[in-house]
Structure formats: C-alpha cells, structure tokens
C-alpha cells in the first residue's frame, strides 16, 4: 500500500506536526516503506496464535482505591506558559 502526499499531510495535521510541502514526498515515502514492511509481516500465517503482549508472563498491575496523590496545584501549573487563578489559560477554544 502506497501513501500519497495528501494522506501524509493529513496524518501530519492530525498529529499536529508541521511538515513543509517540500518535505511531504519524503514523508509519504517513509510511511509507504513502513506499511510495506507490515504487509510482509501480514503474510505470516498466525491463525490460532494468541497475540503476545509481553515477553514475561505478567499480570496488569492494580492499585487500591485510595487518594495518594494530588494537592499540588502549583507544581502542576509550573510548566504552563500561562496560568491564572489556578487554571491553565489557553487561547480561546469554543465549539
């Protein structure tokens, strides 16, 4: 499957990554190469094979329901370009 420059531009936009027009063909080619490789993998017959999610037999780690975190408004906001009255302040976004 080959990716054209329009699709590459759309994917970049969805990921909010700016790609200049002259770089789109190269990006599209890279995507195509990745998909080609995946197509090769798809040729392997994996019928009836459980997908392996971890190389060691691990169980999803769980946590008890208790409040152990939070109350750090200052730290949470410390990297924000703009914060006011305890809120993150961002350019207006209204639907």
């Amino acid at each position, binding site marked *: 499957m080959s990716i054209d420059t329009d699709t590459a531009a759309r994917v970049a936009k969805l990921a909010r990554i700016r790609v200049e027009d002259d770089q789109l063909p190269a990006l599209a080619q890279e995507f195509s190469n990745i998909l080609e490789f995946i197509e090769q993998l798809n040729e392997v017959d994996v019928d009836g094979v459980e997908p392996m999610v971890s190389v060691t037999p691990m169980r*999803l780690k769980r946590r008890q329901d*208790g409040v152990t975190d*939070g109350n750090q408004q200052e730290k949470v906001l410390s990297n924000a370009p703009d914060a006011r009255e305890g809120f993150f302040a961002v350019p207006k*976004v209204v*639907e």
Partner: protein
Amino acid sequence: MLDLSFEPPKPKVIAGAKYDWELVIGMEVHAQVASEAKLFSGASTKFGAEPNSNVAFVDAAMPGMLPVINEYCVEQAVRTGLGLKAEINLKSAFDRKNYFYPDLPQGYQISQLYHPIVGEGEVIVDMEPGIARLVRIERIHIEQDAGKSIHDMDPNMSFVDLNRTGVALMEIVSRPDIRGPEEAAAYVSKLRQILRYLGTCDGNMQNGNLRADVNVSVCRPGQYEKYQETQDFSHLGTRCEIKNMNSMRFIQQAIDYEAKRQIAILEAGGSIDQETRLYDPDKGETRSMRSKEEAHDYRYFPDPDLLPLEIEQAWVDDIAASLPELPDEKKARFVKDFGLSEYDASVLTAEVANAAFFEKVAAEAGDGKLAANWVINELFGRLKKEGHDITESPVSPAQLAGIVRLIKSDAISGKIAKDLFEIVYTEGGDPEQIVDERGMKQVTDTGAIETAVDEIIAANPAQVEKAKQNPKLAGWFVGQVMKATGGKANPKAVNEIVAKKLAE
C-alpha cells in the same frame, strides 16, 4: 425468579407535512464510577475542589508518568454489567483514542474500543404498569473522563481545570431499541436507578456524573420492524448524535427538535448528514458541530502502557454474590408479598432507601398495603412539601408502624390518624402513648355513641322530620355526632346508629 409481565409500548408517531414518521433512538450513557481516586492515578475524584488541585502528574500527562489501574473501578464496571444481566469479558484491553483538545493533556483518551469489559445485557424500561420497553445493551467499557474548559471567564482565553481529567467513566451503549423521547428519558432514569441500587455511580446529573449522548434517526412506519428482524441498519434512516446531555428534560426536548428537523429535510427531498450535534437549551435547538468533524479521526490503537485486563471468574462470582436485590425484582416482590399495586410498588422502589424504610414499616405494622398507603401518601407527601428525602424523615419506621397498627386495630379513626401523624412528625413521641395521653382513641362503645346520637336528635326535632323525608340528610347527624365526640367516634358505628334511630 419473580417477574412482572409486560407489553411493549407503541412507538411514538410524528405526523410530518406529508407522511407519518417513527423515531429510532440509541444511547451512550457516561456514568462516573463512584470511586475515591481516579482510574489510573491516585488523585481524588471529589467534585468542586480548587481548580487543578485533584491532579496527579499522570493526569497532567507529564513525561514518563505511567497509568496504574484502580481495581475498584474495574470491580464497579463488572458489578454494573452483572446488574444489567450482561456477559462479563474475563479479558478486555485498553485502547488510545487520539485527539487534541486543551482539557486532554495526554492527547488521547484511554478507552476500550476493541475489547470492552462488559458485553450484551438488557434494561427493562417501565413506562406505565404493565407496559415496558426492553432495551438491549450492546456493551459497557471503562474509559477516562476529560477535564473541564471554561470559556466565559475571559474574552480571549479559555481556562482549563484538570480535576476531572482521568476520572473513571463507564460508557453504557444501548442498541437502537428506544422509540420516543419519553422512552429515552425513562431509559436514563431506569439506568440511574439501577446504578444507584448497585452503588456504582451516584447518578448526580447536575454535577455531570451521569450524561448521555443520544443517537436519533427517523424512519417510515414498518421500517423499524424490518431492522429488528434482520438487524440490518440499512432499513433505518441516517442518524445524528446529540452530545453530552445531563438533564432528562433536555434529552426529550433535543430529541423532539431533532426528529422534526430531520423530517423536514427528508420531506423536502433532502438527505440527512451523519454528524455530531449539540443541543442549546436556551434556543431549544440542536446545532451541527461540523467544524470539528474533520478532526474526528481517532486513530485508535492498543495502549502500549497497559497490559490486557484479565480478571478471574471466581472474582466475578464473588461480585455477583454480593449484588443487592435490584429494582425489578424488588418491585415484583412487593407486588407479590404485600399485595401492592404495580404503581405503588414502583413508587416505593424508586430509591433503595425508600424501599428499605417501607419494608421496616410493613414488617413492624404487619400490614403491607396499609403501610404502603401511609408511607406514600402521608410520609412522602409531607417530606416532599418540606423538600426533604427519606434520610431526613423525622418519623422513624417504628413510629409510622405504630400509627399503622393503631389504625389497623380500629383504635383510632382515619381522620385522627392524620392528626396523630402530624403530632409525631412535628413533636415526635410514641404514637400509642400519645393516643392514650391525649384521649384520641376511637369510641367504639355503642352505648356512648347512642347517647351522643340521642342528644343530637333530641336537640334538633326539625332536622329529624326533614331527615325522615329525605334519608340523605342523615349525613348531617353523623357530622354532628363526630363533632360532639371530637372525631373520635367510629364513623361506621355512628352511621349505623344514626340510620337506626332515624328510622324509629
């Protein structure tokens, strides 16, 4: 198991300018899990805290932070599934739903698209006694809530609070089995009732702890039946999704508006665009969110930070064993065991605390039907007048049972019982003692009543003559006797004696 049989309601028919139309509605209800901490972090879920104070670095999506699942939230999703008679998937998995919005710092929502924890279930939506809609549940999955954006605090900026970011939600997805605005509201209301019985969600719609997305389409009569036969959606119209509604009234208004909008387009020869819309309660209309549509390519993929969620059947069985009696079963039991009408049983089982109160009264009074009358008509009526709920009742179940016992044993009349209830409600005390102390006991001693009747007759010869001509006037004498005895005479005995004496 006890069951109350029911018939499905007729679908709502809307007359367009040219044709009749029917509605087809499916819903996605987001119910906030009633947990202390968030789904993947240890920050509090408490409503109304200082902005950005209930935020862990996981919620703020700081680099390197990893999610660790709150087992209690998983348990609540399983409990909810069991309460909706649904299959529980012992293996489920988390996926990322990717989109950018300021109140979603991760840039994706962790959800369960491909392998939800709960599969198909059902909800019986009661419309009126004997009439109910069976709504099939397609799935329930666990996901993170987003934060809150405030747009009206500054002309140029939006303000973001991440306190709600990462709080656990259960998304309950129905099949398109709902056939009218009233049914849609009743469905949400029934879900809310079940969730509150289970204790998995507090159902507080005002705080946004229960919200609904509504999928609405219209079709000509007959099409829906074809869909139900084949489960082929092509028999149905194109649907629009109305997002994020947190009031039963708005849900109904939005569906009404949306149906009429779609019908007008179709009858004018147009076609419906499948899209997401918002309901504006001020204007009473739905609006397209088309501007965002292009961005809605979520590129779901399995979340690499989280292993699949595997749970054990034994754990599920333990949860199942701890389920409370649910509304349908409780209602059926009240009808069967106490001889209540289905309507009264519905009123008493609406809230689990009300049902528990009633059962205590019924058990202590030894008469379920009489207890139901007094709980519903007197106690609920009085509490409602004061804006109180059952937990604030000044009358205990034992006190109300005492009043009911006094009525049942004919010790007091119905009228006196109301006075007694008022005394117990406002002053407290033991009903039996109050009746004794204040001489409220009903006079059933026929000798005493006869004396009172004789006195009235002797004092009113003119009335006696009239009453002999017109037996209906006997009521006047009964009234006089009741008055003379301070309402304590047994009305039945008074009636009989008055009739007998007047006939002499």
